[in-house]
Each structure stands twice: as structure tokens, then as C-alpha cells.
């Protein structure tokens, strides 16, 4: 299947990898867990550059946030005590749904983002957590908010760059709650719809901070900003949860495919966001008014 590949590079430093990436240009492709690149079977690359030996497999705590090496596997996230403690462990939960154990032992978080599948399970969580990507090439290093990373299905702003790490900023503490929701044929199947939410209440029981993100309901994972704006500054009530769900349904633009119809996905985007908000409220000890 890949008999047109001329060379498989296994650099052992980031510097070396970036030089190779620069030299091979459009004919070079980055390989990490390989799970997406093999199944996609794109015949353009002539050179593969393996980035799994660059020391990019790590999770480091940084105050109330953390830094994740792009080559950390899904299994690595699932098992990381730091990731399990961060934001109610929603990133660990999402990683644990990214395919079978065999897939999760290979697939990396950087790859899950760079592949830019609209249904990627780590994407809505990292969007809800305000993640930034550190992208590097041989000339420069830049930070890209995940929210500005996607340009379409399987398209990103990366331009001859590789993702070095993922930065999760300090997250709200105190009375906060977090949720990851996924709807799939099975727990580890590709998501029909996925969603993540986090919220923080102030001392008067009003929402001080709220982030909601969804996947598989548009060309790219998205933040549900209209719903967030509706909720921000108000108490959480049955009515506001209903209105937030309505706002999400208006914002999403799902497609119909073999897995689900657009109508079903739209309806489920509402259901998942409402479930997520309720789970967040319970965790935050935040009453839902009638």
C-alpha cells in the first residue's frame, strides 16, 4: 500500500525532525501513531518522518493547567494521574473512547488534532479547556489557539509545521464542574456527536465561566459560543439549560452520512450539551433552579 515511500526517517531530536520536514517539503508526511495516516492511504507523501522518538511523550503539570507532549498516546493520557485530576478528568475520559486498546496504544493526541477529523474525541475537550498548540518548523515556533486551528474537515492552519506540545492554561477551580459526552454506536466507536463542557459558579450561584464545545456536528469541532453567552452571568435553571440547547441546535451544521442523519445529529447536539451542563452542575454542587 505504501510501496511508493522512498525513505522512512526516524529522527531522535526535534531539530533533526524539523530539518527533515523542511527538506522533504510537501512530499514529506509526519507519522506518529500512524493510525490515521495508514487508513487514509494518501499517496502523495514520498517520505515519512516518525516523530515518536523526539521526547514529545510527556504530561507536565503547570499550576492549574498542564503541558502535553504531542506524541503522548491516548493510553498515556488515560493513565496519566495529572490528566485524570485535570478538569474532572474529561480529557482522560475522551482519550479512553478513541478506539480499541490497540488503537489507543498507538494513536497520539497531536495526531488526533492534526488529522482534523470533525469527530475527533479529544478536540471538543481541548476546545473547552482553551488549549493552545505549539507549532514549530525549522524557522519559527508559534502558539495557535485550538479554536483557530481548524479550517475544514481534515484541514488545519499548519504550514510545514509539526505540533510540539499542547498547552492547557490554568483552569477555573473552586465550584467548577466538567463533562465529556459522547454518542457512538459503541463506547469506543467514532462519535456521532461529542461534546465537552466546563463551568464555574460564583459565590452567588451565578455562572462565572462556561465553555461548551462539540464535535461531529460541522466541518470542524466548534465552541458553542451562543449557548455560552446565554448562560454566562446567570443562575443555572431548567429554562436556561433548554435555551442553551436550542442555541446549540441553531449553531451546528451537521451532515448526514452512513452513521447518522443531520437531523439526528442536530437533535443529539442539544441532548448532549444539556446532559453535559447537568453533569457539570452536579459536580460543582450548583443547584438547577426551576
Amino acid at each position, binding site marked *: *500500500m*505504501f*510501496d*511508493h*515511500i*522512498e*525513505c*522512512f526517517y*526516524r529522527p531522535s531530536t526535534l531539530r533533526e525532525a524539523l530539518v527533515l520536514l523542511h527538506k522533504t517539503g510537501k512530499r514529506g508526511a509526519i*507519522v506518529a*501513531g*500512524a*493510525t490515521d495516516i*495508514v*487508513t487514509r492511504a494518501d499517496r502523495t507523501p514520498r517520505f*515519512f518522518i*516518525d516523530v*515518536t*522518538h523526539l521526547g514529545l511523550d510527556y504530561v507536565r503539570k503547570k499550576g492549574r493547567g498542564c503541558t502535553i507532549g504531542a506524541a503522548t498516546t491516548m*493510553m498515556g493520557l488515560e493513565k496519566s494521574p495529572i490528566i485524570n485530576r485535570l478538569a474532572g478528568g474529561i480529557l482522560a475520559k475522551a482519550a479512553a473512547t478513541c*478506539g*480499541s*486498546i*490497540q*488503537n489507543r*496504544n*498507538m494513536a497520539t493526541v497531536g495526531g488526533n488534532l492534526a488529522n482534523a477529523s470533525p469527530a475527533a474525541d479529544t478536540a471538543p475537550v481541548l476546545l473547552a479547556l482553551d488549549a493552545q498548540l505549539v507549532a514549530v518548523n525549522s524557522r519559527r515556533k508559534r502558539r495557535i489557539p485550538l479554536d483557530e486551528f481548524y479550517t475544514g474537515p481534515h484541514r488545519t492552519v499548519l504550514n510545514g509545521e509539526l505540533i510540539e506540545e499542547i498547552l492547557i492554561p490554568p483552569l477555573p477551580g473552586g465550584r467548577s464542574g466538567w463533562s465529556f459526552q459522547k454518542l457512538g454506536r*459503541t463506547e*469506543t466507536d467514532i462519535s456521532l456527536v461529542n461534546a465537552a463542557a466546563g463551568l464555574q459558579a460564583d459565590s452567588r450561584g451565578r455562572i462565572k465561566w462556561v465553555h461548551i464545545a462539540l464535535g461531529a456536528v460541522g466541518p470542524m469541532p466548534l465552541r458553542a459560543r451562543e449557548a455560552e453567552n446565554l448562560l454566562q452571568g446567570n443562575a443555572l435553571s431548567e429554562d436556561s439549560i433548554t435555551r442553551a440547547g436550542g442555541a446549540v441546535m441553531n449553531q451546528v451544521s451537521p451532515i448526514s452520512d452512513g452513521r447518522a442523519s443531520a437531523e439526528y445529529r442536530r437533535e443529539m447536539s442539544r441532548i448532549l450539551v444539556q446532559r453535559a451542563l447537568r453533569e457539570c452542575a452536579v459536580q460543582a454542587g450548583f443547584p438547577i433552579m426551576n
Partner: protein
Amino acid sequence: MLVTVNINGEAKRLNIAPGELLLDALRSAGYFGVKRGCETGECGACTVLVNEKPVNSCLMFAAQAEDADILTIEGVAPDGKLDPIQTAFLDHGAVQCGYCTPGMILSAKALLAGRPDPTEGEVREALAGNFCRCTGYLKPVEAVLAAAQVYRQAGQSARRKSGRSLGTSRKKR
């Protein structure tokens, strides 16, 4: 290109094409217990343990296996003495056509190496990446649970032995 790998405890040098998949490289080297199934990482028939972790060899490039410890089904009973998991699969009628069996046994082996007393749920999760198209999963799940009991009864010595056959001599990276 040449890659050096440790397969079932033996150092091997494989002559591979740069874009060759591990599945093809292993089968070319005579490890036919590694089955070609869906070739998209869904069915798990090609499962091998790489550094003790189950992976789909159809989704991994052979070049990525450089210096790795690989366990295929051929290495599970190297001296002809069946692993308790294999015995349990036979005893419980968990083998039908047998195509999924190597992958299931390797997934089970990785599970029991880390979790000698798994729940049924954990066994089902461990086997979730191994599809059986004959009938189903009840017998394999029962077999793995029974094998776990054998492992536990054999105690430390069985665990030490399974550790050896998984290749504890691997290089730290």
C-alpha cells in the same frame, strides 16, 4: 532498509521496504499467526504486543518497530507448553474458525500481565478490539476469566514466567 527487532525473544534483522507495514513484515518473516483482517485497525486479527502493549500491526510501519520487543502468538508457547490462556480457550470452546484467536490471546495476555484479577467488564474491554465473526464473545470472555484464575493460583511463579515470555530484557528508552 534493515530493522533490528526482537521477535518472541529472538533478535532478528528484517529487510523491509520503507513503507512496509509491520503486519506484512511479520508475515513475510514467517509469523503467520499474525492474521491479515480488515487492514484498517478495526478487527484486531493482526494484534501483536509491541513492548508489552497490544497494537494493530496493520496500522504500524515496520520501520517504527526498530529495537522493539514484539510478541506474536508463536512466542506465547515457545517450548510447546501452552499458556494458561491457550489452555482455557481450548477448554471453554472459545476457538471456532480460529482467525481471531491469536489476537484475542495476545490482548488477554497483555491484560493479565497488568491485572491478574480482572472483572468481566475489564476482560470485555480488553477484547473489544478483537472481532470474532463466528459467533461471539461469551466463550472467550469465560476463557480469559478462567485463565486469570489459573494465573493467580500459580501465583508469583506464573507471573514471573509471563513476564519473561513478554521479554523483560527490553531496552529502556
